[in-house]
């Protein structure tokens, strides 16, 4: 089972991302959960959301405290929130930033695998908005590798209709452009 914690700010679409990812994974025949950090949400405030993906039925319904992967939708949260809290040994950190993985490793004094991609830059270019939640699904799928990008197509089309293709293009770019450290 892969457990993922998403960090973002209210309004940046982390909850939409975990929903899309779960719907797509289930559509691809896997078992998955997607859920927000429970409670009231405020636009701009730091929030978390969670994903679980497995090949067999998932029974656990408690929160995720020791994720395999952490994905940060908004790099300004680094330093504000301990984004690597509980990250499993060997766990991976993905950050939406134009910086290199090495720069982030240094900032966080973190020795594990870091992957970075300028998701906001891609989203701005491909969709005309600085909202990188769907873009970063591409980055996540590259890092966790449980399913291909094509698995996202139906869920994204169902959710976004005529702007789905732009989302898929941005997702693909993040998938291709992400830089992963050792």
């Amino acid at each position: 089972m892969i457990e993922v914690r998403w960090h973002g700010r209210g309004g940046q679409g982390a909850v939409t991302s975990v929903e899309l990812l779960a719907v797509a994974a289930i559509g691809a025949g896997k078992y998955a959960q997607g859920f927000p950090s429970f409670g009231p949400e405020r636009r701009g405030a730091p929030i978390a959301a969670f994903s679980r993906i497995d090949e067999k039925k998932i029974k656990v319904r408690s929160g995720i405290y020791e994720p395999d992967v952490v994905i940060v939708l908004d790099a300004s949260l680094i330093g504000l929130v301990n984004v690597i809290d509980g990250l499993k040994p060997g766990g991976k950190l993905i950050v939406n930033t134009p910086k290199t993985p090495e720069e982030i490793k240094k900032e966080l004094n973190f020795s594990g695998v870091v992957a970075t991609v300028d998701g906001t830059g891609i989203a701005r270019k491909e969709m005309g908005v600085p909202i990188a939640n769907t873009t970063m699904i591409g980055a996540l799928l590259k890092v966790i590798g449980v399913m291909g990008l094509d698995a996202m197509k139906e869920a994204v089309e169902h959710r976004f209709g005529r702007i789905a293709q732009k989302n898929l293009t941005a997702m693909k770019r993040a998938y291709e452009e992400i830089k992963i450290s050792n």
Partner: protein
Amino acid sequence: MAKRVGMEVAVAVAEAVGQCDIDMAAVYPITPQSHIAEHLSDLVADGKIDAEFVTVESEHSAMSAVIGASGTGARVYTATSSQGLMLMHELLPIASGMRLPIVMGIANRAVSGPLNILNDHSDIMPQRDSGWISLFVENGQEAIDLSIQAFKIAEHKDVLLPVCVNIDGFQLTHMVEPLEFPDQELVNKFLPPRVPYATLHPSKPVTMGAFAMSDYFTEMMKAKDEALKNSKKVIIDIWDEWARMFGRAYKPVETYKAEDAEILMLTMGSMGETAEVAIDALRAKGVSAGLIKLRLWRPFPFEEIRAAAKNAKKLIVTDRAVSFGGPGGPVFSEIKSALYHEAHRPAIYNYIIGLGGRDVTVKDFIGMVEKVIPYNAEKTVDTYEFWGVRE
């Protein structure tokens, strides 16, 4: 077999209710039930189901509206949570007293104060004695299935009682997970149109909810009690029919690795599957542990609880509500009552867990079992404990 789809459970509950040919719904939105209200109103507004969605100004009005509509013979639905359910409280015994087959989804949530919007069972527990059939689900699939079954149970001529389906708020309502929707044609076969016992109609006047003083009131209460107790047989029959038609079986009390277990744990609601993972881990360590999951809260399944607990030495009952100043949590009280006259009964321990959304993990469940291992089972334990409380 139906295709598995990923969907948020609250939305799925509204979809499932939409499969039940309802005539009318009155739902006042409240966190964490709101997505049920929103999606059901979408289904009506989009013309996907042919029903009246009555917008009301409060939960008291929602329950009043479904009582009136149900009296006319309509198939009706409402849903609420927490303070909304507390506001309905006054009307709940009226619905059961009038023998109206109303179905209500409850996205269980803590009650104030202090204000809290997260999950526990303190909203349903004060409604315990209102004469409603009360079912608990532990995952999204069960939320779909039981929301459909509830109409058939409620409307059965030997039942004619309102039914509430308890769906843990957030842990279930806000979870996107794999779900299967039953085939609509099969649902139509399983759930034919309601045949009301009596209907309110201007051209054929009847009185419902009439006046009864000391001459008849006791008899009315006895009748309601009998109806509720007798409903268990109908519920079991309907679950058997569901298993035959849809392949998923339901029982009043579910067990997991319980038959030979020395230490049993009991859960109700969405924590059951998390507890199963703990049982697996304990078994792997050589601990003889098992799980009982209570699905039917009212009518209370006495025989099934006795059968499930008969071989155990110790039984840990978890409660997600407090009976302040009482003997323990409300589930604990019932379990103790059920086992009191048994010649061989386990020592029973009570942990109050998961209040106001506090997470309960696999580690917590393992900890509860490991804590009672050294206890002397002969010694009666009359106290209950708030698991993990900071003092």
